[in-house]
């Protein structure tokens, strides 16, 4: 029988153990009130941030000399289909220096789907925030040019919301005359 303790550790596990304490210590000293919760699953670290502090936290994570999360890999949305904090915006960060990934999440209430834009921190967030606006109707405050990406300009709905029917709303997307 193989001893499970002797199995080779995943490189991601080693990296997580190496980075987690350092990262959370820094975040706790600077942004104790901004962090809602920390979640660890399959060697991936997720931190829930309060909505209004997201730009501040992102700026710190990018500029800190030890962490250097200089690459924003993706911004996306999620509809949790529940009352209250219905939407989430998810930021996937990557540190080229530490080769470490971090996921930030922000909860957004249904009645007021606004969140500050992080385009001032990473300009690459421009199109990703536009896509999230297009699909979920989440409004990014401070975004330079918040328009739809995929759907036509005059389209009124946000297709990835859970209450949008799969086959669309008849008549919402006009066809050319035959």
């Amino acid at each position, binding site marked *: 029988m193989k001893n499970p303790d002797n199995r080779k550790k995943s490189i991601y596990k080693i990296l997580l153990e190496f980075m987690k304490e350092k990262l959370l210590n820094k975040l706790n000293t600077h942004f104790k009130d901004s962090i809602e919760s920390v979640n660890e699953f399959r060697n991936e670290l997720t931190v829930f941030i309060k909505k209004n502090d997201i730009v501040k936290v992102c700026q710190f994570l990018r500029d800190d000399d030890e962490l250097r999360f200089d690459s924003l890999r993706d911004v996306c949305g999620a509809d949790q289909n529940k009352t209250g904090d219905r939407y989430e915006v998810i930021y996937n960060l990557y540190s080229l220096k530490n080769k470490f990934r971090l996921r930030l999440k922000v909860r957004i209430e249904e009645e007021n789907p606004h969140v500050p834009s992080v385009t001032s921190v990473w300009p690459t967030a421009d199109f990703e925030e536009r896509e999230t606006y297009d699909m979920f109707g989440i409004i990014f405050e401070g975004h330079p040019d918040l328009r739809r990406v*995929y*759907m*036509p300009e005059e389209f009124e709905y946000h*297709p990835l919301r859970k209450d*949008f*029917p*799969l*086959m*669309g*709303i008849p008549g919402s*997307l*006009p*066809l*050319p*005359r*035959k």
Partner: protein
Amino acid sequence: MGLMKTSESFITTKIDDMIGWARKNSLWPMPMGISCCAIEMMSFAGPRYDCARFGSEAFRFSPRQSDLMIVAGTVTYKMSHVVRKIYDQMPDPKWVIAMGACTSSGGMYRVYSVVQGIDLFIPVDVYVAGCPPRPDNLINGLIQIQKKIARGEKPGQSEKVYIQDPS
């Protein structure tokens, strides 16, 4: 074609048949390549399958110089206006092949953003099945269009041809 040979250097025929014969052997396609079917369409035009054997090697990227539109790919509602505009710019008589499952019926994309068959906004003459269709099946579609022209049918009004996927 109803040819009658009277002497060594003359033939007699009807002018419609003569024009139809010329048209069917010089179909210039407008490649409306929207997604992965376009790769098979390129293969159809390339040296292995070689649509030049049927007189349609001159792919025209201007709709004004073409008379056959091969719609190859998933047509979204946003793209449908572009497809219709290009179709409108082609000179008459103009023929349309709906290449592949997505173009003919929406295919696996049964969602809000994809038009469930391009015959909702342009008349289609031949539907080619497959996902994507093999290039030889597209050649079959081209031959069906040629047969329609030879029979003197009108584009968009004749009976639709549905080509099955042989594989």
